[in-house]
């Protein structure tokens, strides 16, 4: 509230993290009203897509869709359609059906529904049907939108700010962020020392998301490896320490960080398909940047 320029910036605990919303270029009262509307939208996304809330649309889907087609709301369907698209383009690397793996490893509450010995499900077992209906082809499918819904919430919040007439602003959901109306600088945490930044990047009308092993939390004690699972092997990622993706939409940036975490350099074709870029850090201490972004950053520095 007290920052230079007439920017109003607020934060609330939502989506299991801190959601920060900034609005600039409006009188203070209007900026506050716009921010309230944007927070309301984030709360609505949380209500519909939370894995932890048994009342959410997502929880209903997980309970019922193996038995019958379930009609979901337009937002949940959009997120599932985007998840399907990234799953297809990444040749199955991005997969929102890894929840049972995460449950088995203690990253998500609940017991893995897959019976012992039965193969884990994949997104190929999820059918998106006309009129926003969703059906699972078999029992044991369990969706967790944690790797994409946060980005979607950021996109919806940005749309709400714009609708309210905010000329420039930012929405940051625990590191998945999007800016609009003028350039802003965004720092990326250093993967080996997350209390420090290692780069400051200019960002204009674009989204940036980061996945990394630091700050990983789980229900049981053990190693802090991020809850990112290779759907092909059921194993956690170990080669990439952190991945930052720039894309037009936060939903895409959010989802694509998982593809880069899992595939490193081999993620380039998927990134290019979505006109996205990435910087990632390997466990051997190397930093890699996709060519188009690299060229732009070298120019701007």
């Amino acid at each position, binding site marked *: *509230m007290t920052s230079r320029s007439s920017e109003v910036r607020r934060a609330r605990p939502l989506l299991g993290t801190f959601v920060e919303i900034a609005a600039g270029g409006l009188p203070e009262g209007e900026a506050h009203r716009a921010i309230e509307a944007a927070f309301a939208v984030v709360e609505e996304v949380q209500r519909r897509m939370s894995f932890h809330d048994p009342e959410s649309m997502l929880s209903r889907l997980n309970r019922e869709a193996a038995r019958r087609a379930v009609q979901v709301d337009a937002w949940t369907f959009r997120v599932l359609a985007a998840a399907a698209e990234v799953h297809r383009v990444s040749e199955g690397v991005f997969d929102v059906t890894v929840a049972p793996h995460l449950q088995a490893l203690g990253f998500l509450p609940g017991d893995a529904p897959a019976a012992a010995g039965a193969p884990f499900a994949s997104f190929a077992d999820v059918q998106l049907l006309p009129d926003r209906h969703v059906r699972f082809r078999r029992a044991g499918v369990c969706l967790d939108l944690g790797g994409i819904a946060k980005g979607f919430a950021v996109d919806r919040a940005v749309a709400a700010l714009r609708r309210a007439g905010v000329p420039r602003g930012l929405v940051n959901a625990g*590191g998945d962020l999007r800016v609009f109306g003028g350039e*802003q600088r965004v720092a990326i945490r250093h993967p*080996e020392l997350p209390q*420090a930044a290692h780069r400051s990047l200019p960002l204009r009308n674009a989204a940036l998301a980061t996945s990394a092993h630091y700050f990983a939390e789980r229900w049981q004690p053990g190693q802090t490896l991020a809850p990112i699972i290779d759907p092909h092997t059921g194993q956690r990622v170990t080669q990439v320490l952190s991945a*930052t993706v720039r894309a037009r939409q936060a939903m895409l940036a959010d989802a694509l960080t998982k593809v880069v975490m899992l595939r490193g350099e081999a993620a*380039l074709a998927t990134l290019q398909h979505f006109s996205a870029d990435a910087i990632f850090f390997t466990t051997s*201490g190397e930093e890699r940047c996709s060519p188009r972004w690299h060229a732009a950053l070298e120019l701007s520095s």
Partner: protein
Amino acid sequence: MSDWKTFAVPAALVLSTSAPCFGTVYFTADQAQKAIFPGATCTPWGGKLTADQKKAIEKASDLRLRKDPQVWRVAGGGWFIVDEVLGKHEYITFAVGLTASGAVKQIEIMEYRESYGGEVRDAKWRAQFTGKTAKDPLRLDQDVKNISGATLSSRHVTEGVRRACALYDIALK
């Protein structure tokens, strides 16, 4: 595959000389009151928690009460509470508005500060990174407002709100 590039300037590792590193002040108590209860008058509660009440609040919320939260009574019904929580990586002051019947109306983060005090000041611990430090203009204090990184959990604030609700049940109701 080999289209990936490396940077001419290696990743900078910038440590501020003293913790905290990242932090933002969003609201003063007065501003948070206006955001949660627009137009309402708030007066300090004036009460004091007894030792028994503190114990009961800790028991009900399963969270220690190191410092008494600040409590205001809202004209026309409701309570405004300012409290703080300490996470593994962060220190947060937050405000919570409760309705007259004790339901959570709104939560606002007032101040967010990441503190790694001991670690950052420990020269030996820091020395392992010195080789990687580059001369980068990036400053961490006031300049860095936007950070992209892995998600920090807001679990501690959720616990703090639960403690505020327990305070209502035990001392304000």
